[in-house]
């Protein structure tokens, strides 16, 4: 189980004083069709990029709030971990990118009929964002609009 106490002392001290954002009011959109016919996309904050994409900028103060589009047909095994955090063990997602960006698993869930279909693209963020104002104001709305344009019904979001 993940606990804040498993993090290093300096990280824990930082987080103890950190002003976490609160979502208020909590927006709520019901799924408008059965899951078995829904178009589903993934949003991962594991900092994964494809070999031909720019890695996330780990020097950006407050965190890199940009995102990458990852096509559903991408070869999941080629995804590269560029997450800047040293607070977690990266070996799992480096060994198996599906652990943090489960595109293969989503395809299998479509094949077995749990979901209707896999959206044509997914979105990759790097979640170590300590100053999320630009994420809230700029990139999250742009990212969300892409998935609206794709007529996505549901999104599964995966942190690391």
């Amino acid at each position, binding site marked *: *189980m*993940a606990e*804040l106490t*498993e993090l290093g002392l300096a990280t824990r001290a930082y987080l103890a004083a950190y002003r*976490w*954002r*609160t*979502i208020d009011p*909590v*927006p*709520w*959109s*019901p*799924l408008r069709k*059965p*899951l078995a016919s*829904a178009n*589903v996309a993934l*949003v991962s*904050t594991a900092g994964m990029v494809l070999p031909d994409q720019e890695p996330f900028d780990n020097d950006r103060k407050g965190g890199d709030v940009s995102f990458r589009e990852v096509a559903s047909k991408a070869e999941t095994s080629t995804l590269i971990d560029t997450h800047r*955090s040293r*607070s*977690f*063990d*990266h070996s*799992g*997602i480096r*060994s*198996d990118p*599906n*652990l*943090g960006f*489960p595109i293969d*698993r989503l395809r*299998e*869930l479509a094949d077995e009929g*749990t*979901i209707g279909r896999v959206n044509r693209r997914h979105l990759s*963020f790097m*979640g*170590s964002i*300590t100053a*999320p104002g630009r*994420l*809230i104001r700029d990139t*999250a709305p742009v*990212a*969300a*609009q892409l*998935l*609206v344009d794709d007529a*996505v*019904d*549901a*999104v*599964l*979001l*995966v*942190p*690391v």
Partner: protein
Amino acid sequence: MCNQAVSLIAAELERRGIATVCIMLLREIAERMRPPRALFVPYSHGYPLGAPHDAALQKNVMRAALRMLERDGAGPVIEHYVD
């Protein structure tokens, strides 16, 4: 911080009419931030779907999360994943 980022992105998606569910590794962050739907999983940082190369476990976690989308009601909703 990843838990905060997915929560904020989920909120934006919900405001635009897309149903979302977040895997969450830290229950206290889920409770504080209040994403619309959160599945709290009993795994360490870096292992949101349990274990590498364990497709069955990864899919079980995903099914549990996705099934939350089919329930009526209003958020925030936090559920616990049990192996």
